């Protein structure tokens, strides 16, 4: 039983997503390993971000969307009628591609998730905000200007702030779309250090365009191509000894995506 939970805290079975009659994901079976980092790679338009959004029911807000198959979290379907979708999103946190901060102070940005959940205990909120900022190594840099506008800090710090904002809810899974997007190598490195530390406590799924990043930080790598899962295995073996021809072609730069 323990073995099973360790293997797959989050699991998709024959997951298909159709946006207004266009099939974006078809029949994806993936089991995300507990306390590991999984990278999802693939060309543009291969359905990586859609997969991420289906994992915490963000697809609920997309008009004309059809989700088939299932996603199970700790053995229960997240699409079950009795499941509170907002609760799922708190437990399976997500950080989106562009570091999007609210027009609020640094403190209020991080505290947002707690406030809307209805927490009023300000001492506890302060403590949790501080803990989250420490986890992303921002506490020392920002502790003296928590009341400053969040848009005053740099892009890379904003990205870590967004991670802290998701972490304040202590999610068991963290989904991150392009954690380092267009950041320079120094900033990328700082974020990757944080990700490696965070893995000790939770499962992390990242979508990335950078094969190097996937190779550097992830324990497992999944390759999507036109909505289909091509290959999913341990990162080291994925990069050194891919089984599928398509994977090898992608890794060696011989196929490109549907560039939209």
């Amino acid at each position, binding site marked *: 039983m323990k073995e099973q939970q360790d293997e797959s805290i989050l699991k998709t079975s024959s997951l298909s997503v159709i946006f207004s009659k266009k099939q974006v994901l078809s029949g994806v079976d993936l089991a995300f390993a507990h306390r590991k980092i999984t990278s999802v790679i693939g060309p543009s338009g291969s359905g990586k971000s859609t997969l991420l959004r289906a994992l*915490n029911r*963000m697809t*609920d*807000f*997309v*008009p*004309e*969307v059809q989700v088939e198959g299932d996603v199970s979290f700790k053995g229960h379907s997240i699409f079950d009628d009795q499941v509170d979708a*907002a*609760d799922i*999103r*708190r437990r399976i*946190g*997500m*950080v*989106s591609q*562009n570091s*999007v901060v*609210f*027009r609020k102070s640094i403190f209020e940005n991080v505290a*947002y*998730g707690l406030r*809307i*959940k209805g927490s009023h205990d300000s001492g506890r909120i302060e403590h949790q905000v501080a803990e989250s900022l420490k986890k992303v190594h921002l506490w020392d840099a920002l502790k003296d200007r928590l009341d400053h506008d969040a*848009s*005053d800090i740099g892009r890379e710090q904003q990205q870590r702030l*967004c991670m802290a*904002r*998701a972490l304040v*809810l202590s999610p068991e899974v963290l989904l991150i779309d392009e954690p380092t997007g267009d950041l320079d190598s120094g900033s990328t490195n700082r974020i990757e250090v944080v990700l490696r530390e965070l893995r000790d406590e939770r499962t992390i799924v990242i979508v990335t365009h950078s094969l190097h990043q996937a190779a550097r930080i992830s324990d497992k790598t999944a390759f999507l191509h036109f909505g289909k899962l091509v290959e999913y295995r341990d990162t080291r073996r994925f990069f050194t000894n891919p089984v599928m021809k398509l994977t090898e072609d992608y890794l060696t730069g011989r196929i490109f995506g549907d560039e939209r």
Partner: protein
Amino acid sequence: MRRIMDGSSPNRLEKWFVLLCQGCLVLFLLIFLSFLLLLLIMGLPRLDWEFIFGFQSRFPDQSGALSALTGTCELVLLVLLFACPIGIAAAFFIQEYGENSSSMALRMISRFFDLLLTSMEGLPSVVYGFLGLALFVNILSMGRSLLAAALTLASMAVPIIISNSRNALRSVSREKQETALCLGATKWQAFKAGVLPEALPGLVTGTCLAMGRVAGEAAPLLMVGAFSYMTFVPDRLLSPFAALPVDIYNWTVQAGGGEHANGSAAILLLIPILVFFNAISVIWRRHWEKQTAEDKAK
């Protein structure tokens, strides 16, 4: 390429075109300035404290516009009170729950409303006057009252506010709303955190523009029975009312020069009210655009 550079025919054509555009602009300015001049010449001598704070009289040179001025201000406030919440809430519902809904039925309903609202926005004001007379004055027996007039103008303002508010909501980037949803927010919480702060300037300007439009309407008020001769300030919801556009109309259709001067003076009173609403919207938008640009530059 060289032909354009060395001043042969295409370049000359462009010169003529620019000249034509400038000519049109000058013509427009001339017409506008002569209107203004005419108004000032006719109305300014009449526009004194006695006129602003006086009531109607059968002697035109002793007449004042106080009841009409307060009537118009009260109408604007009441319309704001009725139309603003309804208009913005409806826009919110159609945009957030209807148009982007995953339910087919809701999307159809929202499309139907879309059509309905576009047609309602295009209805001439006299039609609203007729509907107001039938519904508010007669069927709901409010009589020729301030309330009936305000409700009539509000029904006219609502479609305008909805359409302006929807444009404001539509133009906002949805990233922040999505971020809030990812953090477990309800749809309303996410709207409040992610969309409202960005859409607010658009909502305010949209409402102000609608107010500016209905404040200057005479036709619907004539139909719901605005009084042209009033010697008191309308002080209750069901009291009779006067309004500046109606007074302007009544003074202007009369033969005497004194009445015409009163009409012009009343126009000079109405214009600042209309300009006020337009100015608020312009200033708000400028201010907000500047702030957003500064945010982006950071």
